[in-house]
């Protein structure tokens, strides 16, 4: 990786570890699914799964919990990826959970469907009898995630009990469980944001266009640059402007902060990430709700 001046020697070890975890999931569980959001972390997961089982097809479906508040580009990318990989894609809509009264839409200016996803996700896990949901969570993302296991046990209500986790030793993963319980599995637990970008660059993994610079209608809220979408309500002082931006992380369009950037190729992005002084989740409004925002959502069954 001399060409961008950042060492990537450790990536092989991280890749080996993630592939081991993927294979362990396929071996230990009956109905795993890979939680796919269209974000870079889940894209890397799909790539790792392909490597883990090649030349066989990935032995589990992709599951997308669709809030309906997506960046259009991620949906196009999602459908194309599932097709090229020959993966089954299951889409579950938060809108349906709202329509059937399973959850209630948030109101007000900061309304987000981020929290509602948990209900749709848990319903999907129950309906599809998923016993292991593979996610792209990384321990470097957030304080509560730093305490997460590779194999994270969830009780029959889908809840996480951080104070009473199974000790995880060496690389021996205990995925035994009772009926109705499930596991969340995080193969890239030990990767940092920079590792993910370095890996995407090294492996030349195609990404949705919104990760690269593009001109977009945006507005500033609480210091964060948000993309404008027609269904969003703006406060009187919030003005729509046009900027050259790119996404550093992709969540719901309502809460994904954009980075002003002219980077249009991976080497530039990798350098930008390496030099950044703001954390990735610092651009996520959903984490700013309180100091324990992530911990609280995770306990209830969030990703």
């Amino acid at each position, binding site marked *: 990786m001399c060409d961008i001046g950042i*060492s*990537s*020697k*450790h*990536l092989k*070890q*991280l*890749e*080996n570890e993630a*592939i*081991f975890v993927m*294979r*362990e999931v*396929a*071996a230990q569980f009956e109905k795993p699914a890979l939680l796919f959001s269209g974000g870079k972390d889940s894209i890397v997961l799909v790539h790792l799964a392909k*490597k*883990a*089982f*090649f*030349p*066989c097809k990935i032995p589990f479906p992709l599951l997308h919990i669709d809030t309906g508040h997506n960046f259009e580009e991620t949906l196009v990318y999602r459908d194309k990826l599932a097709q090229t990989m020959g993966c089954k894609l299951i889409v579950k809509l938060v809108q349906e959970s709202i329509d059937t009264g399973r959850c209630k839409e948030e109101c007000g200016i900061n309304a987000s469907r981020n929290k509602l996803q948990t209900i749709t996700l848990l319903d999907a896990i129950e309906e599809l009898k998923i016993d292991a949901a593979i996610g792209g969570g990384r*321990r*470097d993302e957030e*304080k*509560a995630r*730093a*305490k997460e296991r590779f194999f994270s046990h969830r009780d029959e209500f889908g809840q996480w009990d*951080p*104070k009473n*986790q*199974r*000790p*995880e*030793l*060496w*690389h*021996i993963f*205990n995925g*035994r*469980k*009772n009926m109705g319980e499930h596991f969340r599995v995080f193969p890239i*637990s*030990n990767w*940092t944001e*920079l*590792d993910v970008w370095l890996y995407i660059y090294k492996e030349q993994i195609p990404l949705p266009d919104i990760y690269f610079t593009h001109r977009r209608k945006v507005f500033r809220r609480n210091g964060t640059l948000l993309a404008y979408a027609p269904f969003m309500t703006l406060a009187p002082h919030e003005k729509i402007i046009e900027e050259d931006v790119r996404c550093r992380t992709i969540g719901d369009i309502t809460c994904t902060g954009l980075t002003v950037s002219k980077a249009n190729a991976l080497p530039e992005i990798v350098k930008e990430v390496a030099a*950044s*002084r*703001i*954390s990735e989740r*610092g651009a996520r409004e959903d984490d700013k709700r309180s*100091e*324990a925002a992530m*911990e609280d959502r995770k306990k209830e069954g969030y990703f």
Partner: protein
Amino acid sequence: MTQNLPTIGLLRFTTAGSVDDGKSTLIGRLLYDSKSIYEDQLESITTTSLRKGNEAVDLSLLTDGLRAEREQGITIDVAYRYFSTPLRKFIIADTPGHIQYTRNMVTGASTADVAVILIDARKGVLEQTIRHAYIAALLNMKHVIFCVNKMDLKAYAQSVFDTIKKDLEKLAERLLLKSVHTIPISAKYGDNVVRASAKMTWYKHSPLLKVLETLRIAYDYSKPHMRFPVQYVLRADNDLHRDYRAYAGTIAGGRICQGQKVTVLPQNLNTHIKRIEVFGQKVDEAKSGDAVAIILQDDLDVSRGDMIVPAANLPEVSKEFKATICWFNAAPLDTEKRYVFRQNTREMKCFVKTVNYKLNINTLDENYTDKCIEMNAIAEVTIKTAQPAFIDDYNTNPSTGSFIIIDEETNETLAAGMIRK
């Protein structure tokens, strides 16, 4: 710079120290001084520090992740931290020093190469230092770094450090620790953590970060014999791959080569390695840690839990063996009870036939009369398994020499074990 690059790009270390040793502060300092903390994270802990009435930023807040921890000012369980320098990426397994210390440190150390153990300069070598060093030795750490912290409270005096260092040397000798470094530091003020201390010019060696960056973690692939636990069977039958059958897994020691004569256990059948693949690409050889797929010369019935080994160097195959275990559960060990034994990808029933002795982890005395193995106890036991297990000594091969014991009813992980030959 390229000539002196360390042999690996990723170093995993665990930290041990009791509540007041300043361990969280040390990690916070490593992250802060190596510029691995983002502005928004710093802003968040600065706000909290001020609200709590601290005059300076409390770096320990960086590692205390859960609400209960922040409220009680303690650390629960193992937390993982990441930082990189231009030379290496580091993974820290941060384990708390209070209750359940043994369980947590064993867990943190199981994936680490190096243990960083903190000692309070005011207190010197305590029982808990012995405990921490013992666990580092038990888990076969390649290096142990003792950080004598809070040197600022001892006027940065060389005499204080030298006395403690002598005691540590005696301890290291007793425990047969392989490679030991001792560094006088002040985590609070950053002396000898990332930068060399201006207040302890008498200390002529490297600060902690420099030591971590340059430690040699070279794996001798010729030493442990090749072990390949079969993890998953890959089968395909399409236009590109007719009757494709390969064994996916991660090499657990040694080196595997195309053409190598191997034995499949427990069937005890001989064959050769026909082809080694990494993501469909043929490779001539692969080494410990590599995730590969292996195709055998002969059409044998091989499944998950079987092990492929060199025909010339088989492990011992036995249903009874000795091991050191560390008990993790509130319910004590029951020698009458059947448990699940899990080694690599292999699972079977087992029971603990005898407790040979229990170790007093503070004095390192062996107790042959007290056989009650409760949470955090360490003991040497004899285990009996329902099927033959493949026996390698933990110190020769930590991947195949390690196992866990699982409760069949609650599914909890009850103990960690290290096979002793």
